[in-house]
């Protein structure tokens, strides 16, 4: 290889070696033991570099192997398909944002720092909580971090979780908290599908570190006894953690109004593509409380002034991070999802106070419409609580059959839950006619 567009110095090797005063590049590796040096060619299926055009052809070939669906899938389970405005895509592709690193040098990184500060501030208003970090990986890991925060604060090891929380988040929490020996205890649901609070008082004891509430829960159902749960928790000095779908907050009370200690969620709904599950955007917010803030994982951007008194932005409270405190750090996270946070900031700025309300209402109406139409087919939701965006249906017949018949029509139905049950997600990206077509297709399966 004598030239490559990404390797500018190939023709300068001799000249550069002369400056170093060595004869060959191999001399720069004399400290590598001969017996471990790679002696064969790597087996990467591609020996020579592909040209840009060949890469495009390869990508097109791969893309053609993904099945082209007729409409966005009716799939949720943690992230749902939403429309991503062009403005959001346009801004996050600005290469000054896109190709930058963590803003360790604030004076030259004011733009990205301000954008992240605005992300924190917009989420703070949406959640009505005072402190927000500049992002974590996703909801599952944000919840794991919140639980580990609670454990650091009160050293206790039992965490109460709703049985109807997102099971994927639960898997992540189980993985992360394994070493700390944290135990999750499930709170069963009532017939509405919300936490059965009649059992709560009998479960609570002095070993409980935190209690987690998901709003709405995995079945899309609104928890409606949050005040009561927070009240009991406060009496026992148990930390309250609430997971929220940010768009639902256009309609329902935010965690701050309940005086929740730590709130988490996923910002995917706020202007991010599905990305086959990543990158997503882990949100974590706390009340204005030093103990919580000092135990917060991840980066935080704050306001300050420059030497001439002009407003500026910089990373703050970094002594909590692993640069300074190493094994005593609040978390190991360094690379976060900063660009996704900027996308969410742009999205929330576009929607504004009017748009977010309208959007949440639209999602509510469309998902309820879909449920209503499904019920006309003689099927029902598993629980009868009010819901947002997602709802679980029991078809009383093998869901696999329905699912595969839908797929034959290039429609991707809901997420299979039990043998006969599925969770459907309907958002603003599903038009009335798409919903109607889904229902008609299911009707056809039913009528054989």
């Amino acid at each position, binding site marked *: 290889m004598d030239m490559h567009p990404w390797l500018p110095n190939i023709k300068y090797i001799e000249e550069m070696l002369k400056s170093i005063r060595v004869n060959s590049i191999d001399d*720069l590796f004399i400290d590598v033991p001969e017996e471990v040096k790679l002696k064969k060619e790597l087996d990467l299926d591609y020996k020579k570099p592909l040209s840009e055009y060949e890469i495009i052809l390869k*990508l097109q070939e791969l893309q053609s192997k993904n099945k082209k669906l007729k409409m966005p899938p009716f799939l949720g389970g*943690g992230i749902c398909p939403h429309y991503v405005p062009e403005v959001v895509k346009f801004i996050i592709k600005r290469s000054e944002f896109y190709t930058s690193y963590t803003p360790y040098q604030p004076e030259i*990184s004011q733009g*990205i720092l301000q954008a992240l*500060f605005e992300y924190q501030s917009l989420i703070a208003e949406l959640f009505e909580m005072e402190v927000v970090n500049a992002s974590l990986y996703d909801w599952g890991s944000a919840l794991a971090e919140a639980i580990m925060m609670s454990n650091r604060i009160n050293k206790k090891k039992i965490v109460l979780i709703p049985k109807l929380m997102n099971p994927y988040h639960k898997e992540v929490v189980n993985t992360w908290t394994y070493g700390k020996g944290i135990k999750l205890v499930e709170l069963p649901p009532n017939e509405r599908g919300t936490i059965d609070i009649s059992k709560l008082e009998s479960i609570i004891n002095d070993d409980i570190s935190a209690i987690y509430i998901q709003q709405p829960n995995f079945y899309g159902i609104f928890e409606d006894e949050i005040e009561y749960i927070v009240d009991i928790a406060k009496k026992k000095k148990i930390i309250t953690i609430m997971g929220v779908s940010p768009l639902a907050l256009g309609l329902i009370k935010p965690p701050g109004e309940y005086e929740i200690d730590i709130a988490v969620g996923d910002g995917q709904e706020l202007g991010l593509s599905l990305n086959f599950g990543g990158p997503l955007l882990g949100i974590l917010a706390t009340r204005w409380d030093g103990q919580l803030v000092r135990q917060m994982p991840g980066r935080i951007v704050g306001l300050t002034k420059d030497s001439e008194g002009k407003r500026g932005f910089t990373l703050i409270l970094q002594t909590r991070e692993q640069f300074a405190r190493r094994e005593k750090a609040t978390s190991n996270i360094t690379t976060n999802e900063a660009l996704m946070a900027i996308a969410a900031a742009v999205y929330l700025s576009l929607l504004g106070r009017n748009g977010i309300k309208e959007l949440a209402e639209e999602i509510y109406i469309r998902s309820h419409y879909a449920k209503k139409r499904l019920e006309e087919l003689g099927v029902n939701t598993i629980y009868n609580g009010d819901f947002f965006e997602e709802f679980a249906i029991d078809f009383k017949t093998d869901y696999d059959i329905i699912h595969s018949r839908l797929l034959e029509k290039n429609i991707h139905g809901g997420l299979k839950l039990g043998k006969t049950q599925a969770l459907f997600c309907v958002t603003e990206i599903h038009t009335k006619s798409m919903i109607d077509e889904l229902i008609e297709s299911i009707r056809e399966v039913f009528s054989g």
Partner: protein
Amino acid sequence: MSWHQAVWNEPLIFEYKGRGRIGFKIQEEEELKKEININIPEKLRRKEIDLPELSELEVIRHFIRLSQMSFGVDNGMVPLGSCTMKYNPKIEEEAELLTQNLHPLQDDSTVQGILEVLYYMQKWLAEITGMDLCSLQVPAGAAGELAGVLMIKKYHETKGRWNRDEMLVADTAHGTNPASASMENFKVIYIKSNSEGLVDIDILKEIVSERTAGFMLTNPNTLGLFEENILDIAKYIHSVDAKLYYDGANLNGILGVVRPGDMGFDIVHLNLHKTFAVPHGGGGPGAGAICAKGEMVDFLPYPLVEKKNGIYSLSYIPKYSIGKIATFYGNVGNVVRAYTYILGLGAEGISMIGKMSTLATNYLISQLKNIRGLDLIAPHRPRKHEVVFSAKTLAKETGVTANDIAKALLDRGFYAPTIYFPPNVEEALMIEPTETEPKEVLDSFANAIKEIINVAYSNPKEILDTPNNTSVKRLDQVIANHPSSVTPTYRVKRLREEGKISSLK
């Protein structure tokens, strides 16, 4: 200098005056509104949301101005040591079309194209690192470390060794290593470096015991030095059946020259955003991989892609898998970007990365060696992808510190090196040029440092007063961090002005 960054005095998005505007509107299904009522009870209803009300153009102008006050690799050299800020080839953006609208819970039959990419990436990254298999579950490097630490924990537990509670970490290690180990309740034991900047084998020998669970190491280390005794290190670690963990943050300096698997490492994490050129987006998203060899494969996080009868599926769960690190499958949208990067180089190109990045570093050293005020530990040793200079002498003689050099570099249109890391070097300046900076840029970077040091000796105040060409001047860290003035959100600013909150206690 002619370089100057944009200065916009841009208000916060909340400070825009516009009201009654909207920047993005969705289609309303009017018909459905008549059919469906919103019946959320009053006690659950939201009252108001304090968000801005702006038009699309206002939002665009605001964020474009902010972008102009930011600095990435596309603007100029970012020589941040251990961060590997190489050029991100633009073709990578085409790969996004593969994942953009795919839901992670879609049927395998509908996502064969993307699963094929993941399958090959699992395989290629294993080949590149000399391991047996890689899981792409981890969304970033630190998540990879967490996975690795858990794998080591579970490995010992399956053997009934509940007392393996010590994790060894080199004193030059990235801060994430000890943080990851202690997150999973390991006791962190630091292994000191010797005067050559390498792991002190004698100390290691003394410390390794039946309580050692593993050793977290990066090679080349954070000083850019290759741990030439790596085979001995592996031998001592393996002698008590502890596991050797490779922190892949520094892989770029040896990529294609020597593989962690061949050096005796049992687990490797990769930072795809570093070594495989995924744009870093101001601190993320990144992407990672966690790779394992031999019996450690059984502990990898799930799920992995497997191929049966030509069909790919996300069904492989290793026997003793530690579980899931991320909610779905990691940052797949970035894994595909790394995939195109590998395609664009092929085996031939990949095998040149370590060589060309090492060449660039040593060339830069040749330009900066023997400058008054700058010291270099073990100057006779070749560096790999990065080099750490100490500005201790300069600071002593002129009062100009590593931080001041960093600020003066910003004024000259360069991003600064990593400073004050690793912690065992005083006034550290950790420089990583990468293989993508043309020789002429390396020359001008070296000249900028030489000039800064000359000025430091003649007129230190001029350097202490930098930066002047950036959007703002030096920022006050005391105001930023003091409990009475710390302001992490606009909400806090507002509530403080209204007298509703006090000092952060």
